């Protein structure tokens, strides 16, 4: 058994919240710089150069890469042999997020209730917390702040087995084409296949925060990722929707077992600010 105090968890989350919003992952910055050379459209290349400059300014000055510092999605993988001391995990995550948002000058983008008053909570909390109980004695935290421009364009379709690979292609293209410039392309497209409706959505979210250039372990799904990326980049949408061949940096697919009568497909779109930061306690 390993003790981890809520204080340690809150401190870690406070740090990760700022880190994720102000420092784009290196793989994302590298993808921007590569595409700033390979993109065929001159406007597209200029946009990509601006995005790479923007990432450098944000990192240097510790200001958010994007003003939409998002709703904060937290993936917490808790080892079965971890004993959290001094309070609750979710309270610790929210305390850390509120502190990080205040000290890191992150935008307060959370309303307390979705339909009637929509009052801003003023703290950027609560976080969206996904807890998984896993073997081991570590607590792994991944913070993925999620902006609305891209999240609003995500979708779930309950396909049937006969829809097959063609149905998956159609659904991914539908999401990407509807997203267009609204989702701040180049995007990272997360695709979740199988499970039930909510499992597909969660798989898509996890896929969207996978490192760029990582591939699905199953070669058939890795080939599908390659094919979907080619298709997405043939839409012509391009950087910021201003036309070009770099509509997405990556398409990642994750899958789960599903029902004999089902083929759920979820598409979670991440904007060019494909932010995430992680720590293992």
């Amino acid at each position, binding site marked *: 058994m390993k003790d981890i105090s809520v204080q340690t968890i809150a401190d870690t989350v406070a740090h990760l919240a700022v880190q994720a919003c102000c420092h784009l992952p290196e793989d994302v910055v590298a993808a921007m710089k590569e595409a700033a050379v390979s993109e065929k459209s001159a406007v597209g290349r200029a946009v990509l150069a601006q995005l790479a*400059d923007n990432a450098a*300014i944000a990192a240097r000055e510790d200001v958010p890469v994007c*003003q939409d510092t998002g709703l904060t999605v937290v993936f917490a993988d808790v080892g079965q042999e971890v004993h959290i001391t001094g309070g609750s995990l979710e309270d610790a995550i929210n305390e850390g997020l509120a502190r990080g948002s205040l000290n890191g000058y992150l935008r307060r983008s959370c309303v307390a209730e979705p339909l009637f008053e929509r009052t801003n909570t003023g703290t950027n909390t609560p976080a969206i917390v996904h807890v998984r109980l896993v073997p081991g004695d570590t607590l792994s935290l991944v913070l993925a702040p999620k902006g609305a421009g891209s999240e609003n364009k995500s979708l779930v379709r309950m396909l049937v087995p006969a829809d097959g690979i063609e149905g998956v292609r159609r659904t991914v293209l539908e999401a990407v084409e509807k997203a267009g410039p609204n989702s701040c392309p180049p995007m990272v497209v997360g695709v979740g296949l199988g499970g039930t409706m909510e499992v597909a959505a969660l798989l898509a979210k996890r896929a969207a925060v996978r490192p760029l250039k990582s591939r699905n372990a199953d070669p058939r799904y890795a080939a599908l990722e390659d094919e979907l990326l080619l298709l997405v980049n043939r839409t*012509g949408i391009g950087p910021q929707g201003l036309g070009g061949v770099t509509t997405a940096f990556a398409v990642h697919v994750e899958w789960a077992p599903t029902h004999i009568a089902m083929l759920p497909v979820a598409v979670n779109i991440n904007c060019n*600010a494909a932010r995430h930061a992680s720590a293992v306690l």
Partner: protein
Amino acid sequence: MSVSAICLQAPFDREQARALRAGDSVLISGTVLAARDAAHKRLVECLEQGAPLPVDLQGQVIYYVGPSPAKPGHALGSAGPTTSGRMDAYAPRLMAEGVAGMIGKGYRSKAVVDAMKKYGVPYLASVGGAGALLSQCITSYTVLAWPELGPEALARMEVRNFPAVVVIDCLGNNLYEQNQAQYRTL
């Protein structure tokens, strides 16, 4: 976005705004208004109730933005464009009140484009996700109304050489459609 950018003063001169064409790169200097979802809703509610507006909209350029908070010594935090489509329900009413330009990102509805043609208003985009870079072109940020809305408050911004591109002009020419068609190979 290009070396041959057109320098524009905001609030916009009507004739100059009307002459802008889809694809023009511009650098905007002067004063723009910052407003997004909640401020738009309140502006239109004021108009519907016959209540006075907190600011005269004649000639104004509205930037769809909700900045992140300012660090000490900064005018404001990160300040890139938000998705314009969410303002579509309100934009035609505000153009009728005198709004002469809109800056944001993403597609607009037919009703908005029709109003742009009617009132001679261009729609411009800046780079979504480049909030840290764009905020360097904003020298002041002053809340004009509804501070309780936080990042959604109505504000006035002084901008200097703020980069944007005309994506839909007042004739309805659409840069998104034109450029995407050029690279589409599906």
